[in-house]
């Protein structure tokens, strides 16, 4: 019905299974190839739904998945990884970009081609409670893709369902049960069975184990691993859990605020992370060693809103390794704190009056905010951001002192301008591109682009 050369060969059973057995490195053509994928949600206002802004949930990501490979996408909540998964198979229409599957651009497919494509890529959902219709028996839920795709013969469907249930570790009799009678882990097995029923080439798993107990998580991951080996599936797994990624992924893409910041083989990324964000993520994994008090890498601040992402490198507002301005010498940690102060100031989130009021409650001699001395306010402001007084570099100290002076005397604009010109960092103006690194993986950081040495901070990280 569709003119697609080569498709018939792939779809016949024997050829297909044989092709899949080639394993991880057998094929040099990617099965799935995502280029510049974007998903923006318009923010509208008023009766006429005028667009006043966009939430850039996914903002231009590139990656490939090869046959038989497991690729992970990892990142914090809200970084766009789930949106990336659902828009790349057009459960939501992507705003821009191409997704090539087996050489064909699926974003060009019409609804009939799309329906046929659904047989080849299946998805497993995050929440086992909500991914099954409470009024549909397990058997019907597994058979739903078969029915929808036109397999109207019910006895045939029942046979397939019985076989699938056995393969995912449930029993044939479970087909008559309803979702509320199953545990979370069992439901996720059913989710796998439902995805397998189409005999897909690829499975996309969106946080497949995050809703499960730890003991059950590893069972499900092991099952996924088994199935992948048996059927030569490609798996794209979305997770915020680094342990899960490390356990099953061949390659991993680290996402931050709608962009991929680092992409490479899992072992290489975990052993030698190149992007400061990856380093911070890895440092956040708790260790069993009680003498290990953390690496001192801690992300400060909130994840910025994707509707108004930061300029330049999107991570610069939180990056512990943000590049220092030329002509000044800072200790990296202090530099980060000064940047935090600048950030607050730029967001107009600095409230000097609140600092004064706090001082009134703490110091008895003050009655009204007017009585609070400027010196005391300035000292308190530094304390708020943990900025030492004085800074080690006298020139930097002079700039900072005059900026703080401006802040407490209500000249915030002057302070903003002063800090912007004196303490400018390339991170806020230039956006880095994904580049090959010496370690093997690609990462997008200006330090790599400009071949700057890593800071002392990450030395402590690497000692782990």
């Amino acid at each position: 019905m569709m003119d697609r050369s080569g498709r018939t060969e792939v779809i016949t059973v024997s050829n297909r299974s044989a092709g899949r057995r080639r394993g991880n490195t057998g094929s040099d053509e990617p099965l799935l190839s995502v280029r510049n994928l974007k998903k923006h949600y318009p923010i509208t206002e008023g009766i006429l739904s005028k667009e006043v802004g966009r939430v850039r949930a996914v903002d231009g990501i590139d990656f490939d998945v090869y046959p038989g490979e497991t690729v992970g996408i990892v990142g914090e909540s809200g970084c766009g990884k789930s949106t990336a998964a659902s828009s790349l198979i057009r459960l939501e229409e992507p705003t821009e970009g191409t997704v090539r599957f087996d050489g064909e651009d699926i974003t060009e497919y019409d609804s009939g081609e799309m329906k046929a494509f659904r047989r080849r890529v299946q998805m497993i959902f995050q929440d086992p409670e909500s991914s099954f219709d409470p009024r549909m028996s397990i058997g019907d839920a597994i058979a739903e893709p078969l029915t929808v795709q036109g397999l109207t013969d019910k006895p045939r469907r029942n046979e397939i369902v019985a076989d699938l249930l056995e393969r995912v570790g449930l029993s044939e009799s479970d087909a008559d049960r309803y979702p509320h009678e199953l545990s979370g882990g069992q439901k996720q097995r059913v989710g796998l069975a439902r995805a397998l029923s189409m005999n897909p080439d690829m499975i996309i798993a969106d946080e497949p184990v995050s809703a499960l107990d730890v003991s059950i998580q590893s069972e499900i991951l092991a099952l996924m691993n088994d199935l992948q080996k048996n059927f030569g599936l490609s798996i794209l797994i979305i997770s915020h859990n680094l342990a899960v990624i490390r356990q099953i992924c061949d390659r991993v893409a680290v996402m931050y605020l709608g962009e991929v910041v680092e992409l490479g083989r899992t072992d290489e990324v975990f052993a030698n992370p190149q992007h400061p964000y990856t380093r911070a993520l890895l440092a956040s994994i708790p260790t069993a060693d009680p003498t290990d008090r953390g690496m001192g890498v801690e992300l400060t601040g909130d994840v910025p809103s994707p509707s108004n992402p930061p300029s330049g490198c999107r991570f610069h507002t939180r990056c512990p390794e943000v590049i220092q301005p030329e002509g000044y010498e800072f200790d990296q940690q202090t530099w980060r704190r000064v940047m935090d102060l600048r950030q607050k100031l730029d967001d107009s989130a600095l409230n000097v009056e609140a600092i004064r009021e706090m001082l009134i409650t703490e110091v008895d001699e003050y009655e009204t905010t007017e009585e609070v001395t400027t010196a005391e306010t300035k000292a308190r402001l530094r304390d708020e951001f943990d900025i030492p007084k004085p800074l080690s570099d006298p020139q930097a100290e002079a700039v900072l002192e005059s900026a703080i002076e401006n802040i407490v005397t209500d000249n915030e604009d002057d302070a903003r301008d002063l800090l912007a010109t004196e303490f400018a960092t390339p991170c806020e103006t230039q956006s880095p591109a994904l580049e090959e690194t010496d370690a093997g993986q690609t990462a997008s950081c200006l330090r790599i682009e400009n071949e700057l040495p890593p800071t002392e901070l990450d030395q402590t990280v690497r000692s782990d």
Partner: protein
Amino acid sequence: MSVDTDTHGSTGTETGSQETFEDVDWERVDDARRSLSLKAVLIASIYIVFTAGVIYDYVIKTPGTDTIGTLGVNLQALDWLYILTLLSILCFVVVPLYENKRMTKYYWRQFRKNKAAVVSLIYLGVIFVIGSIGPRFLDRPAVEPSNAYQPPVFMSVEEWMPVECAGEVSGGRCHGTWAHPLGTTHEGKDILVSVIYGMEVSMQVGLIAAMITITIAAIVGVSAAYFGGWIDAVLMRYVDIQITFPTFFLYLMIVYLYGGSLFSMIVIFGLLGWGGIARIVRSEALQRREEEYVLAAKNAGASSFWTMRRHLLPNVSNSVITAVTLLIPGLILFEASLAFLGLGDPTVPSWGEVIASGRDDLEYAWWISTIPGVFLFFTILAFNFIGDALRDALDPRSEGSGE
């Protein structure tokens, strides 16, 4: 648990071994003619026969003759609607309940906990059966002045009250007989027969109007929630307008222009009374639409119709069923009130009409108003009990407990 796929391999369907998902040749499935399931064919043919019957009755056969001449059966518009309602109940309530036996048993166990509701269900079942069969065999209650004011059996009245006492007269009192077990009205109509005819009227009013209401409310509510956007806006603004529309006065106008008719009463209240339930359906369906199983259906390649029919509709049925079991008694009561006020169908012996006919004789002949009143009372009560029990039985919060 690890499975060797080679045992299943590409064995194909004809070898007789169990078929697995790898054996499905989707090219062949695509090429195969879509065969409809037996159930779909049966349901479709039922409706085709029904439509053919209506077309025959209204287009083909000579006007003025009986629908089925040889049997002397003449079906009116109302009868056709009632048949449609009963067919729909069969196809979309009884058949699914039979197919999902385990779910049905589970709901029955929940429902059974409410003893009053079980008794109510039996009572309504009896009313439905007698009301459906009785009028086929009993003649319409006829005016028979000589037979007026007969007391119910085991009762007696002063001898002078009935024109002609049908039963035994002793001690100056006329006793009731089995010829008229529930007595007669001032016109000499048998009350038992009137009550039996009234059962059919009440069931017709409740069920037909409920069917019209559910069908429209479900379609409108689910479509509004699923499609959203301008479809949602248009449908819901229409509901807003319809809810403010004074249906009662529209009916009064119809009565004034064309005379009262049960058919127009049911159709008007059915066609204009679904707004509230459509809102309930929409709000419920909006929640369901966000569930992952709707996304999973899309991921399987399902159409919008499939998702609405298979996922949204079954999941909003709880609130619809509950709302409707509370809507039906309201409609029955409303019909009785209209009939009582003399705004009903004068050709139909409804309970309200019998109650009204006894209102001047309450002092001497209490049974005329009281007996149909008791039936009306218990029918309303029964629907309310069943509504309560269904709400508890279908409450998804209690589903989690399993079995």
